[in-house]
């Protein structure tokens, strides 16, 4: 008979080993899924995890890696503060959309004249503000009316998508676009384009910001009073209150941080890789970032690696779609499985398995 025995402290070794083990198990089970779809599992796994880095077209796909990892890392860093403190903002996708719309609106308002030194920073500010406003709503409602922030932030994703459709069709539509939905291409307007900082590396301003966010959040989490409060509130809410943490202020701060970063990510995406506001420029980064945050153990450095890994599955998945005609949904399933297995393996972090029942 197997029994679980609670560890006095979470195991350090398992904290690091669990994500790696989860990735391995996901690859194995994913291999079976690919085999069931009639693909050679080994070829599929190699196409997804190896070819983008070292394969034939690696020089093209490697920059893509950072391009996709940037927004995932940026959003996940923001989410990690709240998740640590038991504040569940799962509507990052909505904050991402509103941030993108706000940033794009500012960029388009200055079209065609306006210098880059003024316009681009203003767009970043607008993106951050947009994301913060959208995250403020569930935080305020939770503090004032005790509503559930999980449900409210998620409902606001659908509201944001409706606003996005409306903007692409009406207010922000390209007047020279012959009536097609979608805005002007921001990435082709010098003043508003989110350009690569170093050519052909994929490092645009959003990726740069994400890397800065990793460093700053590490400092805040480990060396600042706020980081201590967040960690304390997550482990013991009552102890946190006795230590003088204001729970309402904590909710608001955590939500606003995640909203700000998600909004910034949206703005960098819409002015760079996506290029313009369309009905569906969002590709679900806000949801995938939840997986990234957990896979990275809610730790800035972990999130950096998890973001790159998740970006790899996106790019490898596209590659496998082209070369093996593997359905795109298989990758979505793969990402979902990863989180599942991580949560399953995590039992080892907090519990010890004992053989034979202790009477």
């Amino acid at each position, binding site marked *: 008979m197997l029994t*679980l*025995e*609670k560890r006095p402290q979470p195991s350090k070794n398992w904290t690091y080993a669990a994500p790696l083990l989860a990735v391995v198990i996901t690859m194995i089970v994913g291999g079976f899924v690919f085999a069931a779809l009639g693909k050679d599992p080994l070829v599929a796994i190699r196409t997804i995890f190896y070819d983008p880095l070292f394969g034939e077209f690696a020089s093209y796909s490697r920059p893509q890696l950072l391009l996709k990892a940037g927004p995932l890392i940026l959003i996940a860093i923001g989410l990690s503060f709240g998740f640590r403190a038991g504040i*569940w903002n*799962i509507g990052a996708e909505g904050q991402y959309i509103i941030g993108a719309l706000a940033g794009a609106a500012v960029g388009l308002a200055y079209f065609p004249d306006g210098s880059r030194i003024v316009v681009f920073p203003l767009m970043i500010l607008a993106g951050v503000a947009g994301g913060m406003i959208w995250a403020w709503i569930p935080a305020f*409602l939770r503090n004032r*009316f*005790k*509503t*559930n922030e*999980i*449900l*409210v932030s*998620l*409902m*606001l*994703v*659908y*509201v944001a998508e*409706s*606003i996005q*459709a*409306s903007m692409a*069709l*009406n207010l922000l539509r390209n007047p020279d676009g012959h009536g097609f939905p979608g805005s002007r291409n921001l990435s082709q307007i010098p003043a508003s384009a989110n350009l690569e900082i170093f050519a052909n590396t994929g490092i645009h301003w959003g990726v740069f910001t994400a890397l800065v966010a990793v460093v700053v959040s590490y400092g805040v989490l480990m060396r600042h009073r706020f980081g201590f409060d967040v960690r304390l509130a997550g482990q013991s809410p009552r102890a946190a209150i006795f230590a003088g943490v204001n729970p309402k202020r904590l909710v608001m701060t955590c939500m606003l941080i995640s909203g700000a970063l998600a909004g910034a990510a949206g703005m960098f995406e819409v002015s760079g890789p996506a290029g313009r506001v369309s009905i569906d420029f969002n590709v679900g980064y806000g*949801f995938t970032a*939840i*997986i990234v945050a*957990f896979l990275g153990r809610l730790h800035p450095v972990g999130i950096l690696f998890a973001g790159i890994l998740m970006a790899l599955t996106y790019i490898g998945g596209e590659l496998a779609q082209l070369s093996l005609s593997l*359905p*795109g*949904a*298989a*990758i*979505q*399933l*793969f*990402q*979902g*499985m990863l*989180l*599942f297995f991580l*949560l*399953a393996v*995590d*039992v080892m972090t*907090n*519990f010890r398995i004992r053989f034979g029942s202790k009477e």
Partner: protein
Amino acid sequence: MDFGSINPVLLVASLMVAATPIILAAAGELIVERAGVLNLGVEGMMITGAIVGFIVTAHTGSSWAGFGAAALGGALLSLLFALLTQFLLSNQVATGLALTLFGLGLSALLGQGYNGIKAPEFAKIDIPVLTDLPVVGPILFGHDPMVYIGIALIAAIWAFLKYSRAGLVLRAVGENHDAAHALGYHVMRIRTLAIMFGGACAGLGGAYISLVRVPQWTDGMTAGAGWIALAIVVFASWQPWRLLIGAYLFGGVTVLQLNLQAAGFAIPVEYLSMSPYIATILVLVLMNAGRAPGSLGRVFHASR
């Protein structure tokens, strides 16, 4: 704009149809939460039920077989959640989210090649004289069987929780799992069964969307219905009959905005289509008087 084209009788009749998937899914989640488990994976189980039901119906031609398969599919998927949260003691919020993301991926994968096919019609109950009655006929008697099954389910859950011994045990487990364990009840077994019931109901709700309400398959077609079902459970303060009111309220907003769209109301379509979600938020803000089950969302570990 032409308000005359909106027929109040048809409006009420169609809001009952619009509310049915929410009723089915929320009824299951109500039992799950009364057992002290917060399963945020309703959306994932619904969409899985939607595609499983659709595939089976497309191949067998029988909607009933589809509903059965959808319930089975939802229950099987929820078993994953039960395994993780009850036996591997994972965080319920994170696991529920994982279930939703997994279900969305799984359904998209299963649904390949089923896009754009129309489901066979699910026959409505037609009682010769009663259905032809003015006003009352279309509202009360002209629906398909699942509408009545949804209402019957609410009644059954109400009676189960209020009058049966098993219902009392379930509530005890949800209110205080340590005390229930000390009394000798099998907390994990009861919760696993509750979770599977919730999964089956969510599967039925999803299948109702793909087989009756739309009726065809598109990726991500549940469009947040699972999350709305979760919100309705909170709105209902975990009481079965209030759940029915919440679902009809929501169905009313949905149908009304669709009718306004069709009538060419002056508000743009995109703003009308966000109204159900805003209504859900408003409802959550206004109705928070209820008391959640005492052990809701807490991990149970019998340390002996």
